[in-house]
């Protein structure tokens, strides 16, 4: 495979990080200037990632590296290949859209400038995770993603943000520590952390199985797989909405990336040993998330539990270890990311406009908010696996992977669970948008255009990815790591 060397990747990763103080200063002086700058800066990574589309599509990889800590055989490198491309695209696009959305949604919040600066750092951390070429760098970005998000939840969240933020921090940090232990262990065994070098070194040693389990724990906590999931509904529901968009739509997918890149990519001889228990965990997650979403009355909590359920589908596809299932899992990362981002943005519109998020107190909004109701219905049906929307396009691949792997009964359960998904979403939409309004709605209007714009882009993507997905799916298929028979 051809390698294209570049300098743009480090710009994509670092620009938001380095310029975030500037954003803070600029926003403090003039909101308008700060907003413009934030939007431009958050767009740069997306432009860079999109710019490489043809390169990746033609089967090449984009790579750059700098010497860093020679003593530990560590280099500072970034790699964009067909495995990381879907993740990088999702992260950079959603980061950009969430920034636009924030400029309206958060405008009257306290400490707005600090919020924007932290938001950009958060974006940078997530992008770094999927582009890093060695595990040490990956871990650094893993933490860089965690710390700003803690502050974003704890300082701008609703409910009991400090408690919830702390819970989020402790939980995901415990996962990160398990992962760190695994990474150190790899270094102790093999003397290198470069992913490209490790791929030839991994063998069926027992230690490697323990390492795989440790790294899986790190990924599972991040993805909020049952029973490590209880941080998610709190954090995702109480975070400020643009952050919920990023947490649910993007950040939990870094766990999926870890599974694809490290567990499937490096430990592909070992992962068949643990895949059945993981499949069962995935099934429990999807059913449990669905059942819990059915009995919630808070719009954002329903969406949060739905994320737990959907992560179950992603995990199911990935650990089915059938090529089409893994490809479906990665594709579902994109589809769920766009659809869930869209749904959280819709919930944000409801909160912004009506200042209410309890199902029992909402109702009849459809006539006043035609765009939001359309977006919410499309996003929800996509996640419930309704063709011709994106969610179906990836879910059938996941299910095919399940049957290919000989897991027909498990797959049947997973498919049946989509009826539950449709159930809780339609229940939510009915309560929010249909029936008789409970309040006077005459003064209510649909969201301002700064919020509608990012929603429209996502809406379009959710629809188009359902049937015109040829380029992105062929990249994803190329990116599926070689699987052990």
């Amino acid at each position, binding site marked *: 495979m051809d390698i294209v060397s570049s300098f743009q990747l480090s710009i994509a990763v670092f620009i938001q990080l380095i310029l975030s103080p500037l954003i803070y200063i600029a926003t403090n002086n003039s909101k308008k200037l700060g907003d413009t700058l934030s939007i431009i800066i958050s767009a740069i990574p997306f432009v860079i990632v999109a710019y490489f589309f043809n390169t990746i599509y033609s089967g090449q990889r984009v790579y750059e590296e700098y010497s860093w800590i020679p003593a530990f055989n560590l280099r500072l490198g970034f790699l964009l290949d067909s495995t990381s491309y879907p993740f990088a695209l999702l992260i950079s696009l959603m980061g950009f859209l969430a920034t636009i959305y924030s400029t309206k949604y958060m405008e009257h919040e306290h400490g707005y400038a600090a919020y924007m600066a932290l938001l950009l750092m958060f974006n940078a951390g997530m992008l770094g995770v999927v582009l890093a070429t060695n595990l040490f760098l990956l871990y650094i970005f893993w933490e860089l993603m965690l710390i700003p998000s803690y502050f974003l939840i704890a300082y701008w969240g609703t409910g009991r943000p400090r408690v919830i933020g702390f819970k989020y921090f402790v939980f995901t940090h415990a996962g990160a520590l398990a992962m760190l232990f695994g990474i150190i262990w790899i270094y102790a065994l093999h003397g290198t952390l470069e992913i490209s070098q490790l791929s030839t070194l991994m063998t069926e040693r027992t230690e490697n199985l*323990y390492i795989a389990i440790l790294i899986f724990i790190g990924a599972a906590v991040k993805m909020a797989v049952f029973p490590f999931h209880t941080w998610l509904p709190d954090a995702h529901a109480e975070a400020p909405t643009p952050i919920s968009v990023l947490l649910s739509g993007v950040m939990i997918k870094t766990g999926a990336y870890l599974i694809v890149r490290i567990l499937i990519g490096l430990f592909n001889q070992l992962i068949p040993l643990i895949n059945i228990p993981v499949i069962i965990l995935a099934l429990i997650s999807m059913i449990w998330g669905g059942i*819990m979403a059915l009995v919630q009355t808070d719009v954002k909590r329903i969406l949060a539990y739905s994320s737990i359920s959907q992560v179950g589908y992603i995990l199911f596809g990935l650990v089915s270890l059938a090529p089409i299932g893994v490809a479906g899992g990665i594709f579902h990362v994109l589809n769920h990311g766009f659809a869930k981002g869209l749904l959280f943005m819709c919930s944000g519109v409801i909160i912004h406009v009506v200042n209410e998020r309890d199902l029992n107190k909402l109702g009849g909004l459809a006539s006043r908010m035609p765009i939001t109701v359309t977006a919410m219905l499309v996003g929800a049906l996509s996640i419930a696996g309704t063709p011709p929307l994106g969610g179906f396009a990836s879910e059938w691949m996941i299910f095919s992977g399940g049957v290919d792997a000989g897991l027909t009964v498990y797959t049947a359960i997973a498919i049946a669970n989509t009826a539950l998904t449709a159930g809780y979403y339609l229940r939510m939409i009915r309560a929010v948008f249909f029936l008789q309004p409970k309040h006077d709605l005459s003064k209510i209007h649909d969201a301002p255009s700064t919020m509608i714009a990012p929603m429209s882009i996502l809406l379009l993507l959710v629809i188009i990815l359902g049937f015109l997905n040829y380029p992105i799916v062929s990249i994803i298929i190329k990116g599926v790591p070689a699987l052990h028979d």
Partner: protein
Amino acid sequence: MLPYSPWLSWVIPLIGCVFVPLFFKLGKRVGEAYSITVVFLASFFALSMIPDVWGGKSWVESFPWIPTPRGFIEAGVLVDPLSVLMASIATFIGAWIIVYSVGYMSHEEGLPRYYFFMVFFIGGMTGLVMADNFLQTYIFWEIVGLCSYALIGFYYRKPEAAHAGIKAFITTRIGDVMMLIGIVILFSMFGTFNYSEISHALAHGLREGTVGLPLLTLILILLFGGAVGKSAQIPLHVWLPDAMEGPTPVSALIHAATMVKAGIYLTARLTLTIIPFEEFPPATLHQWYLTVAYIGAVTAFFAATMGLVMTDIKRVIAYSTISQLGLMLASLGLASELGWVASTFHILNHSLFKALLFLAAGSVMHAVGTTNIDEMGGLVKVMPITFSTSMVGALALAGIPPFSGFFSKDLIIEAALEAGNLPIYLLITFTSILTFIYILRWIYKIFLAPSNHHNHGGGHGHLHESPPIMTIPLIVLAVGATISGIVSEIIHGFPDYLGMHMHHTTSLPTLLTSAGIIISGAITVYVVYFSKIIPPEYFRAGGFGYTLHKILSNRYYIDALYYKIIDGFIWFSSILRRSIEDGGIDRFNYLVADGVKSAVNILRNIQTGSSNINIGGLLLGVAVLIIIFLTFLYGGLW
């Protein structure tokens, strides 16, 4: 054939629907005219294919679509008499129903939404029947389900309508889940979704012994599950009567003429293309065929009994739809060529006369402003066109010659006799008698009974016939329902069109059965309704009659049972939430957090400043590090 008809007949409405809201921005009339144009255009393309497939000709067109690790999935169309028949029904009847809507929906809000989903639906339905593979079929299958959901819930402010939409979506989704499992298993086995490729692979697999008959039967039953949901058969029939909350043209188009036929279409497609009789002798798959036949026949009978007691003008014919769909399935399940032809012929006839009956019901509701047939009556003088067209529809449904329903019902009975399946034959015959009774009861109560509506002001002040924009579609459909049977009988049109050269003459037992149905039905209707020698109230008077009426009115308590199950599930979920999620897992987290906190407090006591303890701790730490280091170095302990 017009160029690219197999594609354009569904692509035009699918793309065209996107612009419906834009044209409505230009004005209501512009939007309506645009919608009508789009659908008529599609119907020209669809109808133009009829000469090309006449006599059973078929062909496939396809192109690469979705990449998978095992190569491309192709998108394609399968043009054969069955698909062209269904496409013509969907677009042609659809077009006239859209015309009717202009009059019927004129006073409603949210028209762009209405026309968008109607046009979208017609595109989806046509795409469904033209598809040459399961993936495409499933995609359109769900698109039409989505449109059905949106249109049932058109009056979304009304709790019943919002509820009925969800009920329809979820109930059919249960069938769809089965269908998707079947499709995914097939894809996993053969790496393709294509009908003919799957059929060849299955035949090959059966010969080689790599595919077992039990597996094939299971897959077919799973696929049939989708048909049960979509065509509202027992036990998934509960959504269709509630779907009558939607606007009447929606009921006519989606819940009578087209979408509910998708299940019949799928079953017909399975027996025609996937498991053709020549390659897969019906005897080897008799379990599957019996399942189809019995689900159809039992549904037909029970739905007809419920149709007898309903008082809502649309629910009577909704139960009738369920019942007639059951007849079609029963006929397919007979596993004979005659049964197959009878079933597809009944699809055509039923689409015409049932759409007609629904539109007529809409016309009545438009005038009287109520949906209860007990509060109507005497409309024959006020609404002559509506009455005469409804009469055509009713007679066609009741199976009275020369109207179309007679011919296809005749064929179904003939097929049942030919198959020698007595229970199915009896169920079909009793169903037909009940059909005769409930539909003439319906006509009698609406049009012929003494007027009951004097205390209702009516919808618009005084009673009047509907405007021409509504009556012209009625007349078009009435003409269709009248001639489709005769034409076929005279020129052997329908079997010729399908390319099935059957030389059957109606046998004496069939003739006797048909005559028996008509005579017994006619006597009952005359005695109970027209002359009131035994008035209908008499049947509700006794203990048994009262109980029976109550059971029927409550739909055999099946709905109630399902609601109990769902309520139970939600109740159970709340228990799970309280006890495990919030009370168990989440509390455990806080327990751990509290435990850490108290552990820290204990450790705080150690920080005495005493150098002994400090140095001891330090040494202990060094020792642990050394042990870990040695462990790694030698790897022995692990």
